[in-house]
């Protein structure tokens, strides 16, 4: 007996509205259909009517968890258009906040993964540690979410010695706790049984469907924008791209854990090597006509902004593609042939930031309607057309 289960738009497993329509037989999913559009806010059209500075605050509100990534990606592009070079100290502070944001986002995700798997104790512990990061961010920028620390030409607030010492202290405590808890997570058999072998995405599928972020890196595809397009600071730090080769949710957990530990190192290097100087340069009101593409590695994957300017103080066209949208196609492939019990885990494993993925124009007056995306049959045809390679099932190597 096969019937359709709707997950969403309202469901306890989803933090934001999206509709997944699964066709199931017993407990096995035979088909999946994702529908978007519930969270549209018309940001791209709105951005054309605001000047360069106002747009920073608009960009931040695309998302709560990765707000700084959108603001930074935008500001990078605008600085390139205006041919500004922010001072080193400003850049260091900006990317320090980026790495702190990455830490907070990954800890949040680990808690959510634990909760979706039913492992509530893990959830409580990682979110308790996340409070340390939130306090650090509040100390640096004044807000726990939406840091508003970027401005065109640099950053708005400076760090003093006391704050630097507190950051180092916090990171040391976090590192100790993270290693301890992840050892527990790795050795808790019921948790590993839930996440191993679930949500398989081979490397060929990930490449064909243009997946991004930890989702792609867990399939062994080592693309990281911070290594490829190092914006200002990342080629001065010592760090490595985190990959795993198990192609499943366990691989994604391992990749994020590795990224956490790398981020702790990077934060320490940045705080200890913080150069002296100004934190900002003065930016003109208008930008020269031109166009630029800016890419940034958000916690969820590659964030890309394309800005075209026509010489005025407002952008001619601002295009944002947030990482979750790139992972939707891969999600549909992952869901097929899974169990119902795995739906929340598979969907959570791409770290969906649904409000990030929906910012193109539509000013929806009143209710939002139903949207459909790609049909699985099409993606399935494409994925199967490539020669089916053996699924890589390596043993996940925990980083300690």
């Amino acid at each position: 007996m096969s019937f359709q289960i709707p997950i969403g738009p309202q469901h306890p497993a989803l933090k934001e509205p999206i509709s997944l329509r699964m066709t199931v037989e017993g407990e096995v999913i035979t088909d999946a259909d994702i529908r978007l559009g519930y969270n549209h806010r018309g940001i791209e059209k709105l951005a054309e009517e605001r000047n360069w500075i106002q747009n920073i605050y608009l960009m931040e509100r695309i998302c709560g968890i990765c707000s700084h990534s959108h603001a930074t990606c935008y500001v990078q592009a605008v600085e390139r258009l205006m041919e500004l070079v922010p001072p080193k100290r400003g850049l260091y502070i900006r990317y320090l906040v980026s790495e702190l944001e990455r830490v907070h986002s990954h800890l949040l995700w680990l808690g959510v993964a634990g909760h979706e798997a039913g492992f509530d104790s893990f959830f409580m512990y990682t979110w308790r540690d996340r409070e340390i990061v939130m306090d650090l961010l509040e100390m640096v920028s004044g807000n726990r979410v939406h840091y508003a620390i970027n401005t065109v030409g640099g950053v708005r607030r400076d760090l003093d010695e006391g704050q630097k010492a507190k950051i180092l202290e916090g990171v040391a405590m976090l590192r100790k706790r993270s290693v301890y808890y992840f050892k527990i997570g790795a050795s808790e058999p019921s948790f590993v049984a839930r996440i191993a072998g679930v949500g398989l995405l081979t490397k060929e599928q990930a490449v064909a469907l243009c997946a991004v972020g930890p989702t792609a890196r867990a399939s062994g595809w080592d693309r990281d924008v911070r290594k490829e397009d190092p914006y200002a600071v990342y080629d001065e730090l010592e760090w490595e791209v985190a990959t795993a080769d198990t192609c499943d949710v366990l691989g994604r957990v391992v990749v994020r854990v590795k990224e956490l530990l790398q981020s702790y190192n990077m934060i320490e290097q940045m705080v200890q090597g913080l150069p002296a100087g100004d934190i900002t340069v003065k930016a003109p009101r208008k930008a020269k006509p031109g166009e630029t593409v800016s890419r940034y590695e958000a916690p969820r994957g590659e964030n890309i902004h394309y800005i075209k300017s026509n010489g005025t103080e407002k952008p001619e066209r601002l295009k944002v593609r947030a990482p979750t949208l790139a992972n939707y196609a891969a999600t549909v492939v992952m869901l097929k042939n899974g169990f119902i019990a795995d739906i929340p885990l598979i969907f959570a494993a791409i770290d969906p930031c649904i409000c990030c993925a929906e910012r193109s124009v539509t000013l929806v007056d009143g209710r939002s309607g139903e949207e459909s995306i790609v049909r699985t049959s099409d993606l399935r045809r494409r994925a199967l057309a490539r020669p089916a390679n053996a699924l890589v099932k390596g043993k996940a190597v925990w980083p300690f």
Partner: protein
Amino acid sequence: MALLRTLLYLLVYPGLIFLFVYGTFSEWFDRKVYARLQNRMGPTHTGRFGLLQPVADFFKLMAKEDVVPEAADKGFFNALPAFGLAVVSTAALLLPVWNFNLANPGWTSFSGDIIVILYLLSLPTLILFLAAWSSTNLFSTIGGARVLTMLFGYEVPLFLAVLSPAILAGSWRLAEIAAFYQARPVLLLVNVLGFVVAVIAVQAKLERTPFDIPDAETEIVGGTFTEYSGKKLALFRLTFDVELVVASGLLAAVFLGGFPGGALLGFVFFVIKTLFIIFLLSLIRALTSRIRIDQVVSFSWKILAPLAVLQLLITILVKGFLS
């Protein structure tokens, strides 16, 4: 006079009021242990140490609006919560706490009452399935299917594990089994394997993590209880609390040597031993994550059932050795 005594027996002690009080107390204990293991506070403000929190929850639910879906089977839907509570309360009457007088078998302590208590503990699972079925909601149907699938897994190991000490004691009456082990405490060690199996199987029966699949909030919204609200939900939750008391009482009677010492001392032992078992159950709940339904069934049949059979074998050997 006898009628009044029976009514008091049924309603006050060890009847409904006592079960209500002790059931909510066990729920408080469980929630407090779970929270402290997670570095949280747990219930704190309602009453001293938050003791009245489950009571407050019960009364809050009783006061809420009761919504019955239109397509639901109204007769079953409305009657099942009360039926469930009745079943577990009857099972509670059979515990050997208040019928410790061996020489005086009454209608709550008779040869074969261990089988009756196990049977009465299986009924809530069927009631849950019927509740899910009569809700006619997609998520409830899946929850009901999962409940029955789990039943196929843990029931056999539970029965085997609980009946092994009975075989060693040579009696089917709970009071006599408890008395047997009180006289020879060393023989309790024979049943350690069965105790472990029984604790795990009881965790599955009570549908707590790692076996809370039928009630998996992040997957199927509310599972069996998706459509229940108000008084009926309150009664269902009370059913689970009382089932917790009965199951831990059963395990304490059979594996931990019962409740010796007459009326007052026996009651104190009852509280201590049941809280110990509830502590073990909470520990398991805090330290594991939810596993999938197919993993439950395969775990039960590949690990629990063989261990229970092994326990039975050990019991039979020891019995032969002793006689």
